[in-house]
């Protein structure tokens, strides 16, 4: 506990200083900056043309897929972190278990690759291509 506090205090202090600095700069700019109000100041930028519809649209699902893969793979690599730090203690048994685990991960990856989940599917290419 004592050890953790010794480590934590400086980080907290550092966080506080950083926050003060960044917040301070933003505040200073708010105070110093002028308030311009041109005719078109408050329009969103879309290459100089009034936008049609706003930016809240449905977005293609391949982004969602990547997000899911991330959750799966990142969570699973967490177990590897635990194995890596206790590497000396768990020895050969641990290695074999980790090996099996990594193999399963790789198989999953190959599976995703094979079913084309890692490619962005083009849905609007003209037929003849």
């Amino acid at each position, binding site marked *: 506990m004592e050890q953790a506090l010794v480590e934590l205090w400086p980080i907290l202090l550092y966080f506080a200083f950083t926050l003060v600095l960044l917040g301070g700069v933003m505040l200073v700019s708010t105070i110093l900056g002028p308030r311009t109000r041109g*005719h078109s100041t408050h329009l969103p930028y879309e*290459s100089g*043309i*009034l936008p049609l519809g706003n930016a809240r*649209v*449905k977005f293609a699902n391949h982004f969602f897929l990547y997000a899911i893969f991330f959750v799966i793979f990142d969570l699973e690599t967490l177990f590897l972190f635990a194995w890596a730090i206790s590497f000396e203690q768990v020895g050969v048994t641990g290695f074999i278990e980790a090996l099996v685990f990594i193999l399963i991960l790789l198989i999953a990856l190959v599976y995703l690759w094979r079913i084309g989940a890692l490619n962005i599917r083009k849905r*609007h290419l003209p037929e003849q291509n």
Partner: protein
Amino acid sequence: MQQVSTPDLLSELQPWLANSVLLTETTADQIPTFWVAKKDLLTLCDAARYKLDKPFTFLFDLTAIDETTRQHMVLPQRQDFTVVYLLRSYERNQDVRIKVALDQNNKALASVTSIWPNANWYEREVWDLFGIKFDGHPCLRRIMMPTTWLGHPLCKTHPARATEMGEYSLSDDLRDIEQQALKFNPADWGLTPQGAPDEFMWLNLGPNHPSVHGVFRIMLQLDGEEIVEAIPDIGYHHRGAEKMGERQSWHSYIPYTDRIDYLGGVMNNLPYVMAIEKLAGIEVPERVKVIRVMMAEIFRILSHLLFYGTFAQDIGSLSPIFYMFVDREKLFAIVEAITGARMHPAWFRIGGLAADLPKGWDKMITEWLDYMPARMADYDQMVMQNSLVKKRAVGIGAYDTATAIEWGVTGPGLRATGFDWDLRKKRPYCGYENFDFDVPLGTRGDSYDRCAVRVAEIRQSMRIIRQCVQHMPEGPYKADHVLTTPPPKERTMQDIDTLIPHFLGVSWGPVIPAGEAMMEVEATKGSNAYYLTSDASTMSYRTRIRTPSFPHLQMIPVMAKGQMIADLIATIGSIDFVMADVDR
């Protein structure tokens, strides 16, 4: 160059028109010209496009002339407006011009978009600038002028100068109206939106965007990052160059041509002065031809180098453009030493050049020619052989030769498909037949090939320039002709017969004989042609500028469908256009 004479072509075309007769007209440029009745236009076009042996697959140009104030060349078939079609058959290496007369009170005729897809924008342009309607056009709306514009600018009744119109200012209210008019409405463009409103994203790429090379707008329908529809919109850089041609003397219009393809410099002067020389019957001396070729090729290199750099930059490579700007600076120094100006020298004259070459010009050019090959080798490694560039450009935005011709693609974009057609070889002008150079070709017609063809063309242009330096003929730098502007001055102080024409030619400007002529050159970006109509006046009656970039942009939707945004940027970058060349 024209292998088939007018009577032969007439006998080929006439059978397809049962009841009416094609009238012929003789023009200064020797292109077979036929007048066809309005009702027979589609039949004739269809025959020319599909029925003939070796058909006219390429609609080179489509424009109109307001004939209401004509004084000379009064033909019986001529009415208030004339719509002019210029068709080309690559197989025959032959052009044909078709004219249709229209009455003031019935300015409408059939659209040829179903025969040549690239007629779409040309017909919109004619509608916009002349108010001529095209029945059966899929989306006949203004293209150059804002939709809020009143009147049709190229009509003779429309004012040409700011002083002829009321004072203009853009108040906030007016600006809001204009902004609203620019807002994209899918229905106006003949699109029926599918799915829920939030299914797709509609994104305006341009007019104010770093990758559209000027003020060019593409409206994108996006599904994620994938492009469902792309609709290009132009006209943001329209300066009325054709209208100005009707208000400037033949001579004083030369500087305007420089600014059409603003990277092309004197390359733009070339077709303009050559068209006038055709009308006036001026034969220029050998030295003038060689100097013109040399300067035009220098500007081809300048333009291609800029293309090369921006293409690399568009796919994220930051450095090449800076190296190429260094090379361009060196070359501009030479242009400056010869012409006194850099990007827009306006240095060619009717019947000659503004001045002779300065002392030491050959040394400067030779030094540059010796310096450049090593740099080009560097760029090959940096850009063309870079595997990331290949991944981004190979197979992207590809089209085949047939599609290219159908959409009116000319120049490197056409040769990238493997189609061997370079005007300098097929119809040599300005003495190109005397030079030894190759025509680089691509194979796939994709973005990478379009770049590769241009890179190879830089090397060929260097070859041509070296030949110019080695074989520069001696002689005068302007033709000994009364219409040469400014005319030769040596004898003016000796006799009144040369003094008077000189005085008139310099003060009023030359009076070019009535007639019409088109002159085309293989410009930096494709086929650039000036189609001039003279009414025996000091000013042009109609100046039509057929630019290569205009049809190239029209083709973007064909290439863009199914691409990612990043591919579209690579595709646009590989087209090589400048908006001044599109909008004029």
